[in-house]
């Protein structure tokens, strides 16, 4: 699935981890990012409230870029770019 998110970022892969609890969505994101190329962005949908802290914390620690974090009502959509 490819779409154009904010700031003109092309999302290479969209992972639907809704309905999965901690640490599921983060681990699915990591799996997706591992498979992605440098410069690619991966989106993950999560209905787990913990993701709203965990995913930005992880991105911060790893040093990737959190392109966007949208509250879509009942779930969030995070777009993360693999910067290195």
């Amino acid at each position, binding site marked *: 699935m490819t779409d154009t998110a904010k700031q003109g970022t092309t999302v290479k892969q969209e992972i639907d981890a809704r309905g999965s609890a901690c640490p599921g969505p983060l681990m699915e994101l*990591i799996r997706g990012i591992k498979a992605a190329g440098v410069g690619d962005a991966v989106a993950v949908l999560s209905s787990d409230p913990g993701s709203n802290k965990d995913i930005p914390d992880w991105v911060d620690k790893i040093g990737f870029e959190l392109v966007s974090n949208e509250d879509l009502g009942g779930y969030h959509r995070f777009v993360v770019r693999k910067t290195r």
Partner: protein
Amino acid sequence: MKDKLNIIVMNGTVDKLLAMATIVSGAVAMGKDVTLFVTFWGLMAFRKGAWQDPAQQKLPAEYQEYAPMMQQAMQNMGVNPWMQTLRTAKELGNVKIYSCSMTQDLFGMKMGDLEDVVDGEKGVAGFIAESQDAEVLVF
């Protein structure tokens, strides 16, 4: 923060195993290498298929009354079984799992009796040697 987290998995109750598997996942996410040393009741829970068998899933006696409620809540929330969470962590990071050789002898367990997520067996001295530059947790 050290980049190695070593955990002694002593307990075989699902509450602690679930917390342990979740912490392993977080450690892997944050780039740590993780080594588990699985001993006593913990090792019982690593016997093939034990994590899927309701009769072998135990809670501490003092929390037994909460079991049905917890099970329902976890199902509603989409919490994965602890073994599945641990496998995912192992797939995505550097996680090594060793059974305690003494416990294996004590319970008459062979490597083949254990889930294939277990990499091998170790004695306590080997585990301690490997923990020199690691943070160590007991679960």
